[in-house]
């Protein structure tokens, strides 16, 4: 019995030391969130995957800057540019089709190992290299996604914060504006914008789309501000002499950041789909420029005969949207203080080991 008690004491002491050490460490909110995020496996894989995807996509093609006749060229790692027109291949394609993909992703079993070939993703009707087209399309789509995300995040946060904080007539006016925008479907607004300004490039289209897609976020931020402004620390800041701007940006906004980040990531993955949908309808990015949605809509008739024209852009859309969603999911979990990690089998084994060690001691 006496021995038993001693063991318990030893284990307790070890525990208390560990806890005391953790206390002195002093983690900031940001560090805590970061640690939780790092532990989120799906989100971390998505972050790495997305960043490498962006790096690969943006370095693939030549950047031709300056005038059309004698451009200044930053070379990319892929030999074709999306405007190049190599000869259309007729040979060895299944079912008498043309421009089939030359990528060979099966190792050894078919006897010749893995290789890219001349046109890994195949060629389109007039012989343009499909890999370069998909890369260009992904560049546009990612650009559109980030522009929409940044504009909507800024507008939504500021407008939501102002109407939630000041309430009264300011809130009334801003929220009726939100109501008005929400009642008109984004796809129709996008079609009208695309129809009139589609020729001004993907960035301009994204800018205009961003101006119409902040409404959901502003509603969420407003709700968060309505509850946070009643908290006592806001009164405390007011008593300390803080002005409205300081209270909004220094005191309340950092507390609402969880909601903002989560809904912005959702918005971004939504944006890539909006752009795809618009291009599919013919109102987004217009030829000769390409986007992933435009590629799919252009070759929708070819689906039965040349399905690869459908596969590759589709694959990129899914990959990017999924990555952003997983990252958003990880951020949501990391920002939620109530989120507790379940005991894994490994943890339990560790605990058992720790105890047996304490007993030996």
């Amino acid at each position, binding site marked *: 019995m006496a021995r038993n008690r001693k063991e*318990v004491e030893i*284990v*307790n002491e*070890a*525990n208390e030391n*560990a*806890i005391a050490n*953790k*206390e002195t460490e*002093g*983690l*900031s*909110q940001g560090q805590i969130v970061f640690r939780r995020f790092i532990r989120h496996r799906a989100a971390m894989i998505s972050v790495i995957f997305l960043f490498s995807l962006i790096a690969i996509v943006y370095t693939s093609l030549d950047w031709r800057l300056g005038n059309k006749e004698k451009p200044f060229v930053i070379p990319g790692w892929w030999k074709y540019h999306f405007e190049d027109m190599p000869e259309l291949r007729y040979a060895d394609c299944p079912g008498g089709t043309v421009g089939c993909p030359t990528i060979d992703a099966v190792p050894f079993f078919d006897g010749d190992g893995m290789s890219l070939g001349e046109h890994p993703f195949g060629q389109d009707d007039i012989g343009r290299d499909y890999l370069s087209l998909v890369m260009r399309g992904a560049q546009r789509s990612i650009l559109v996604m980030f522009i929409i995300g940044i504009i909507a995040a800024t507008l939504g946060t500021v407008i939501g914060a102002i109407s939630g904080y000041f309430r009264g007539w300011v809130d009334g006016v801003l929220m009726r504006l939100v109501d008005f925008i929400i009642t008109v479907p984004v796809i129709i607004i996008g079609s009208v914008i695309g129809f009139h300004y589609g020729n001004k490039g993907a960035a301009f289209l994204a800018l205009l789309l961003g101006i119409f897609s902040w409404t959901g976020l502003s509603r969420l931020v407003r709700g968060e501000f309505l509850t946070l402004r009643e*908290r*006592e*620390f806001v*009164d*405390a*800041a*007011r*008593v*300390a*002499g*803080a002005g409205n701007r*300081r209270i909004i940006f*220094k*005191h309340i906004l*950092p*507390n609402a950041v969880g909601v903002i980040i989560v809904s912005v990531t959702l918005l971004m993955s939504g944006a890539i789909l909006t752009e795809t949908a618009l291009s599919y309808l013919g109102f987004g990015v217009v030829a000769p420029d390409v986007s992933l949605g435009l590629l799919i809509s252009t070759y929708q008739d070819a689906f039965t005969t040349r399905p690869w024209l459908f596969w590759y852009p589709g694959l990129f859309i899914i990959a990017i949207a999924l990555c952003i969603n997983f990252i958003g999911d990880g951020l949501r979990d990391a920002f939620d203080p109530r989120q*507790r990690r*379940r*005991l894994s089998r490994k*943890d339990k084994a*560790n*605990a058992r080991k*720790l*105890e047996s060690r304490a007993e030996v001691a």
Partner: protein
Amino acid sequence: MSEPVLQVRDFTVEFWVDGVWYPAAIKMNFDVHAGKTLAIVGESGSGKSTTAMGIMNLLASNARTSGSVKVKGQEMLGASKSVLRKARGKEVAYIFQEPMTALNPVYTIGFQIVETLRTHFDMGPNQARERAIELISMVEIPDPERSFDKYPHQLSGGQRQRAMIAQSLACDPGLLIADEPTTALDVTIQAEILDLMRGLRTKLNSAILLITHDMGVVADMADEILVMKDGNTVEHGTSDQIFNRPQHPYSKELLAAVPKLGSSAKRSLDPKAREQMPVMKMENVTIAYPKRGRVPEFVAVRDFNLEIFPGEIVGLVGESGSGKTTVGRAAIGLLPIKSGKLEIMGNDISHASWKELFPIRRHTGIVFQDPASSLNPRLPIGESIGEPILLAGLAKGDELNRKVEDLLEQVELPRSYRNRFPHELSGGQRQRVGIARALALTPDLLIADEPTSALDVSVQARFLDLLLDLQDKLKFACLFISHDLAVVDILAHRIAVMQNGLLVEEGDRDDILKRAKHEYTRKLIAAVPVPDPEEQRKRREARLASK
């Protein structure tokens, strides 16, 4: 002696925290017999609630338990889910601390009681309804027939707690576990609930396991007491033993920390102070919350008169809803007043705009009730404390840091805490930070809005000592708002009593406590629990006799 209703042996609860098993309750041993009350006493974090939840296996999934828990001879640890579910509610019932959150707001209280009844007994809806109304009248909720169809928000705090008790009594449980049943309630209502629980114990002959940090409540209820600290049982004995002959130093400390009414020395005030210009002066002040949509205007405070002189501590006492917090907030310009006159340091701020209030802010500070909510969770506490200084333009950069560190030292916190975040501090430490921030500009008037109501007794005692020391040193005037007369008794020179938005009585501390004129004040004083079982019995009898 008969078989105990609850028998706990070598009961240990551990939590998995960041890689180690952290024990929350260690080798607990106790019995509870029918018709008796065992009180588990200890500070927050001592493991008393964990023990109570662990008995019926209601702990979070990162906990593990060992030892033995027998309810009426049946082992509960490791029992199957169906055995546990049958026992919960029928053999063992819980009363929780916060009746508003423990009752489901979308169902009537009658529905919730009927639900419990029909889960455990084969009972028709009409029969269940009859039984529920019987229960509601047993816990003395007025007009049981109509109360049956009321929603939780339609009842007062005390009535809600009664409804909770009615629900937990639905199946005549052998054991009632009451986890801080009166902490969220006012003293007068607390006294009523305790009377009710005592009556039910004798009527139904159930055993009660009472969990509380309030020694007054313990003195009122307990037959046996178990003192816990950091998960360990420190002392275990009869009520008489613990209160009159405590053995362990911690039990003694806990008893000494309980503020006792009328035991502290008279606090003298410089007689000249009352001849000076008052720091704060309220004349016929009325404060109203404006109407919002269909909710009509609510007058929270009516015709309020109060003066606070330099260096004086005025205690403002009243039940919840009496308007005392409203007065405190108006005094520093956080709420506008509807009519009357409010002066701070001789400046009329009755109808001041934000800009006009700015210079006043330098002379006032406030300590809020809830330290968890009054500090910005995303700011290091050094920044929170330094904010008033920074915004008043008094210091910047290194000088500001030095001032913040001095302030931390003043409230007896280590200087290194400057970089910590509120969630890394305990409740008592956070409240110290609250004081440091309020005193950052060395104000002439400090409003303390129930600063100790969220703290444990021993932490509260240290906090009050600190506040008194600081007041001696800095000589600020203070409006101390509290529902606890015993606390006000320690601090105040003068006491003002409020009821339903009206000032009932006001006068020197001893006049109020010993020679109260108003009946309401006397009722408040009589309701304060005293950590002495003998004294409590006498008061109880007096209370019953007066009914």
